[in-house]
């Protein structure tokens, strides 16, 4: 999971104290009557290691689609979790997404329509040409562990202004929540 927070939004004062003991950042917020201070322990990463912590790059996805309302998605995924450990997410460039589970006892498929596809979905491939000729009805799919999807959906208490999903066929599901200046990206690898 990779989350970016813009520093300016969170505090008027932002201090780093090195000091030899556990470094802390102290955020303080002022309001009329009170000061609230949060001490958040951090590990300071030396500059020489910064390369190891890169924002994961946007993969070359096959399909990009807006997610249905997260509350609806959460209700359905919670129930599906009772029935199976794995779920297949598939979507196409016609705004359609399906969630599928299949076990010995039961198979369940939920169909979402008219979700809309982000405009840059068509330029997904850096090479330019091939994706534009992608059949809009063709589904890209990935089979994922339901618990990982549930974890992502638990974060839906924050009402995002945009929520979307990129799928690399049989490789990874990339979920993005945007809310004001905060972006949350969640990568779920596909399982066989």
């Amino acid at each position, binding site marked *: 999971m990779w989350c970016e927070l813009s520093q300016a939004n969170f505090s008027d004062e932002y201090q780093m104290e090195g000091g030899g003991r556990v470094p802390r950042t102290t955020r303080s917020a002022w309001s009329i009557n009170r000061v609230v201070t949060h001490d958040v322990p951090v590990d300071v990463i030396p500059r020489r290691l910064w390369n190891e912590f890169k924002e994961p790059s946007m993969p070359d996805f096959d399909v990009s689609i807006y997610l*249905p309302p997260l509350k*609806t998605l*959460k*209700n*359905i995924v*919670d*129930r*599906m979790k*009772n*029935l199976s450990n794995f779920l297949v997410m598939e979507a196409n460039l016609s705004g359609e997404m399906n969630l599928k589970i299949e076990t*010995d*006892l*039961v*198979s*369940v*498929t*939920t*169909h*979402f*329509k*008219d979700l809309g596809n982000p405009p840059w979905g068509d330029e997904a491939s850096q090479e330019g040409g091939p994706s534009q000729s992608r059949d809009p009805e063709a589904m890209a799919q990935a089979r994922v562990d339901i618990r990982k999807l549930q974890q992502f959906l638990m974060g839906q208490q924050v009402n995002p202004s945009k929520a979307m999903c990129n799928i690399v066929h049989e490789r990874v599901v990339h979920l993005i929540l945007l809310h004001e200046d905060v972006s949350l990206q969640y990568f779920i690898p596909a399982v066989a």
Partner: protein
Amino acid sequence: MPLSTQSQGDAEQYVLVASLDNARNLSNILKAITFKDHAIFSATPNGLKVTVEDSKCLQANAFIQAEIFQEFTIRDDSVGFQVNLTVLLDCLNIFGGSTVPGVSTALRMCYKGYGYPLTLFLEEGGVVTVCKINTQEPEEPVDFEFCSTNVTNKVILLSESLKEAFSELDMTSEVLQITMSPSQPYFRLSTFGNSGNAHYDYPKDSDMMELFRCTKTQTNRYKMSLLKPSTKALALSCKVSVRTDSRGFLSLQYLVRNDDGQICFVEYFCCPDEEEQ
């Protein structure tokens, strides 16, 4: 695709099609009999009967008449199958079982016959979920041979009077003892637990007693573990009839009103505990 046109082309191949505008009218009543994984479904032109049994000593039946459904089409005189009830309930509640007024899940339940899965089409807010649940050959439900001509004692009580008693039942008691008599104590529930004995008496002229027809004094004990699930049916119901026959077999019949005010019935049969008076 709208549920109504879903199977226009293949209506022929289904032996049973049942539709509800509000799936809760089925799922709520099924919750009242969910104490085992498997349920036997039996459909006739009159409607649907769902049976759950425990160790041949307890049987619960839920009756949903054909009139409750917006559509109920059956091709044979009788259609039966067995299905995993917990899976079915998870499917019926796939959209989370919201209680927002005006929002309900529509259901179309279809069955093609022996060897085919039970297919559910569920729709809420434009989102469609299709479930295919595997079915098994239905077991023959136990016939408790409980007939009204053999009933010795019968009372009908308003459920609210029993709800409190059942919620407080001493679960350390292995049995629930039911005494019915034309004379005192009329109708008594008793438990014998670790902390002592408890009795709940319902006089025959109580406001809660809608009908009192006891011909002979009878005291019977039933395993608490068998009767405990009936509390779910009690919670949903507005009235309950309690009957015992000459063998001491117990019949509990619950009158349940669904979301639309329509009436359905749930019935529990229970054998008396062997070591009796």
